[in-house]
Structures are given as structure tokens and as C-alpha cells.
């Protein structure tokens, strides 16, 4: 299993994605205005939702399952 995918599926990786998502959304709302801000909000929602619901969108690129539970199970 790819170490990057393994980290992303771990509790630390999930929290990293959630925090990164929230930061992007906050940047989109509070710092970047206009179309750039909207793009940041939408892009931020993706890692946030993926971390929250325990799936890794990049895992299939490394021939790993989408579900975090399955990645952790090996």
C-alpha cells in the first residue's frame, strides 16, 4: 500500500484533510473575494467531506480502495 494513501486513511490524515478543507473554505470566505473565493470554497468542501466520511478520492489512482476502512484493513 502506498504510504501517502496509508497516511491519508489514518486518523491523522483524516484530521489533516478536514482542517485543510476548513482552511480553504475560510480563505474563500474571508480572504479571497469573487470567483477565486467561490472556487476555494468548492475545492475546500472536497477534502472536508472526504475526511469526514472516511474516503480517499486519490486512493484509486494508487490502486487502493476508496473506503478508508478498507485501506486501513489492508
Amino acid at each position, binding site marked *: 500500500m502506498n504510504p501517502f494513501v496509508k497516511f491519508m486513511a489514518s486518523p491523522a490524515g483524516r484530521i489533516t484533510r*478536514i482542517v485543510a478543507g476548513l482552511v480553504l473554505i475560510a480563505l474563500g*470566505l474571508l480572504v479571497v473575494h469573487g470567483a477565486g473565493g467561490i472556487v476555494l470554497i468548492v475545492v475546500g468542501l472536497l477534502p472536508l467531506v472526504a475526511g469526514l466520511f472516511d474516503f480517499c478520492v486519490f486512493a484509486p489512482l494508487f490502486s487502493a480502495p476508496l473506503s478508508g476502512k478498507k485501506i486501513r484493513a489492508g
Partner: protein
Amino acid sequence: MTKDEFNEKLRNSSLPVVVDFWAPWCGPCRAIEPALAKLHTEYVERVDLWKINVDEEAELLRELHLYGIPTLIAYHSGQEVGRRTGAASTRQLSLLFDSALSGIPPAQAGATAADRILRMGVGLALAGLGFLGGIGWTRHLLIGVSVLVLFTAIYDRCPIYRTVSTRLKDYLRRKPAGLSRE
């Protein structure tokens, strides 16, 4: 009853089954009886509850590798999907009935405590961002997402969701069988 006879009985059952392995002398077995009776009524015509006295079925007990009672095993389409040994609350027992109905092991049936806390925290953070920094439609989007995220932290404890979702799953599962009979 041997394991083969038991498996044959399971295969012939038209409904998912929860099997309660009990004994008349077992205190915890008596303690969970009211909860089981309640769940049996709640899941009537959706999940069958079989009671097996282990004193009369010692051979089956060995073959199923049961090491304590009360033990409850959930079966979906004749396959074991979950088991639990020892006294448990109505909520914990209901997870086994849900597993029998859905075919998903109980460990995956509900979010863990850490997941619930995480979802509540994120839901509140999103709501805060929406109220404080949201302008126009982004405020509505973030508040909407935050409500959804907050709901996912408690969805399986919401009686309305449980009633609607089990009935919907039941309806979707029965519909093809009903159509094939016509």
C-alpha cells in the same frame, strides 16, 4: 439439531433471522428478554427471532463456537453478519436486527463516538463560517452543508430517520420480489 440442519433451516427462512442462544438458568438471558420482545415487535415481518435453548442443543453450541450466553447471531440470506455475547441495551441489540436486515456487520452500522464528535465539530465550524463570513449564496450553502454534517453525527439515533430508512430499504428490497410474482 446439527449445524447442517440449522443452516438448512436458515436457508429456508424467507426473512433475515436473529438467533438468541439462551438458557432458563441464565440471568443475563432473562435481563435482555424484554428488550428482545420489544425489538421482535418492532421488526415483525421484517426480521425473525429464533430462540434456542442451549441446554437442548449442546452439539449446535459447539459447532457454532459459542463460548457464552446469551449470544445473539444475526443472519442475512443464511450468512452470519454479526454476533454479540452478553447482556446489552435495546439500542445495541437493535444494531443486530438492523444488521440482519441490511446484511452489513454491526461495526459498520453506526458512526463511532470519535466520528460523531468530529462531525459535530465540523458542522458547528461550517455554521460559524457561514454566519460570520458567508455572503449571499455561499452563506446558504455553508449553513445547508453544516446542517447536513450535524445530522450525519446523529442520523442513526433519529427515530424519524430510522423509521423512514428501514421502511424504504424494506420497500426497495421487496419490490423486485413482488414484481416477479406478477
